[in-house]
């Protein structure tokens, strides 16, 4: 049964490896030049000493040169990539058997259909976890120099490092597998799974993530002029500590001399990663559990 699962997933596995290889090639090309520039400009020492305040020219030169390599449009595409990957792998797993009638072959051999699914799930989710970890590793390595300027708690960096990327893939996979069982067709299942996945993904990022833990408040005395630094391009952010994620100003301030900012400190990165990954893994488990239960209960 392990051989059967592997043989049926073989072409998908090769495609995923291809994607990973392409990503790795890109990462190596750009990452190497990033690393060279980083050491060349003496940024390491500057950051260690002053969090970047003492070498603004070098910082902005570096950011300008490699900022486009991390620009919003590109990362927006990559935002949905884990979802696409998950649904492309998950939707056909059961749906294709139902669509082409091969379930009558697959489920009439001497292997009960729930065991058939369990073995397939074990193999494929294992593969997706490895894939997610590999993609995360590649992206983390590639971004390492830039991360030393921006930290990795902020949006669009957090989403690709740590645990969450793998969790996103798994969740999309789980939704698509369940949708495939219910809808019996691969393409509709992909769409029916992707939309809720994306909705949850965005809701978690923009509504829940800023509040995983109560944000801290930073007060800035603006009597002598304020640096307004909350965006990704400001090194360091307004809190003065690289890696902090500034959420914005709470409402109801105007014309005060003391300006407050809400922020999440950089050292909460792993805590947040565990919360968010745990949430998506729980959704995955629920979807896969429902699929196994429904398969067990199907009339034929």
């Amino acid at each position, binding site marked *: 049964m392990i*051989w059967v699962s592997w*043989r049926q997933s073989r072409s998908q596995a090769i495609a995923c490896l291809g994607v990973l290889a392409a990503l790795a090639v890109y990462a190596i090309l750009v990452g190497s030049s990033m690393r060279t520039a980083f050491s060349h400009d003496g940024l390491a020492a500057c950051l260690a000493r002053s969090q970047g305040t003492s070498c603004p020219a070098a910082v902005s030169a570096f950011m300008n040169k490699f900022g486009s390599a991390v620009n919003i449009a590109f990362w927006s595409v990559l935002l949905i990539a884990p979802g696409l990957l998950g649904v492309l792998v998950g939707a056909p797993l059961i749906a294709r058997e139902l669509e082409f009638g091969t379930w009558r072959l697959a489920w009439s051999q001497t292997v009960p259909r729930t065991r058939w699914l369990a073995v397939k799930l074990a193999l494929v989710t294992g593969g997706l976890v490895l894939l997610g970890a590999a993609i995360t590793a590649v992206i983390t390595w590639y971004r390492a120099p830039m991360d030393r300027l921006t930290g990795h708690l902020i949006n669009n960096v957090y989403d690709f490092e740590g645990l969450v990327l793998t969790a996103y893939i798994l969740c999309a996979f789980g939704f698509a597998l369940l949708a495939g069982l219910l809808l019996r067709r691969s393409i509709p299942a992909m769409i029916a799974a992707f939309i809720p996945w994306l909705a949850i993904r965005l809701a978690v990022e923009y509504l829940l993530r800023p509040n995983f833990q109560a944000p801290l408040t930073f007060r800035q005395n603006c009597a002598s002029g304020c640096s307004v630094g909350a965006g990704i391009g400001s090194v360091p952010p307004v809190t003065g500590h690289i890696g902090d994620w500034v959420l914005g100003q709470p409402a109801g301030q105007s014309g005060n001399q003391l300006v407050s900012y809400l922020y999440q400190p950089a050292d909460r990165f792993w805590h947040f990663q565990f919360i968010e990954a745990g949430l998506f893994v729980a959704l995955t488990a629920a979807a896969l559990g429902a699929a196994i239960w429904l398969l067990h209960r199907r009339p034929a």
Partner: protein
Amino acid sequence: MIHDDVVGNAPALRTAGLGRRYGHVWGLRDCTLTVPAGAVVGLVGPNGAGKTTLLQMIIGLLQPTEGQLEVFGETTRANSAKALARVGYVAQDHPLYRDFTVADMFHLGRAMNPSWDQGVATARMDALGIPLKRKIKGLSGGQQAQVSLAMALAKRAPLLALDEPVSSLDPIARLDFMRELMAAAADTGVTVIVASHVVSELERLCDWLIVLTGGRMQLAGPVDDLLAAHRLLTVPRATRDAELPGLAIHRADSDRHSTVLVRIDPARLAAQERREWGVEPVGFEQLVLAYLQRPSGASTDNPAQAAARPGPATKEVTR
């Protein structure tokens, strides 16, 4: 003979009041029969009659809603390894994985069936000239059907179920498929049940017959016995059904005479036969078509069924 230790003397198939409901609709109801081991059974009925429902319950893919089902003397839960091991299945349109090679399909069979005999599978491909390295999508329809059959046979199950296996094949491929199937039956004594709605092809294959319409069993039994129990009577038009020496199954009325296919009640035959009636034996296709054309609500008054089921005797349908 296959699995004599498993088969023993039990009938290949025994059902009592077997039924399956989908929501509010009964796909099959009140099915009672006993099929001996080694029989080749033809399962006939129009589309939607319940053939696939019955087959899937026998195969172990579908749980009955009511009644009992025994395959070689054992009742098992549907979708359990034990149920699935007993029956080799060739589904309609012989589904296979199109990107697999023939060798891959056999590898799948070996991986998923403890009783798999690889020699049987490869010997068949040799005899038919089908290369093991060829992808399924590169085979003709007839060759794909042969691969499906080889997989079902290599499973070495004592019962083989085929759901309209040749409906999409050209006549030569059909003949080749049936040749292989019958040769396997001759070799191993496997019990075969073939569902089809093409009646003319079944006569040469089957020694046992089941006719289903509207989810109900209209006729079931050994072909020889069934043919011996029926006659085609040519009678004057005015003759009423109640005057006939048995149950009228199908009646065609002309201006002055009627042709009636009758299931003879031996007790009444001697008393009621008259000189001006023509009496002929009934052919296989005639018999099946007559039963297929009966309204599905009509009573079958099947002696075997009536004996097996206690309760009020069913009434004859009279016109």
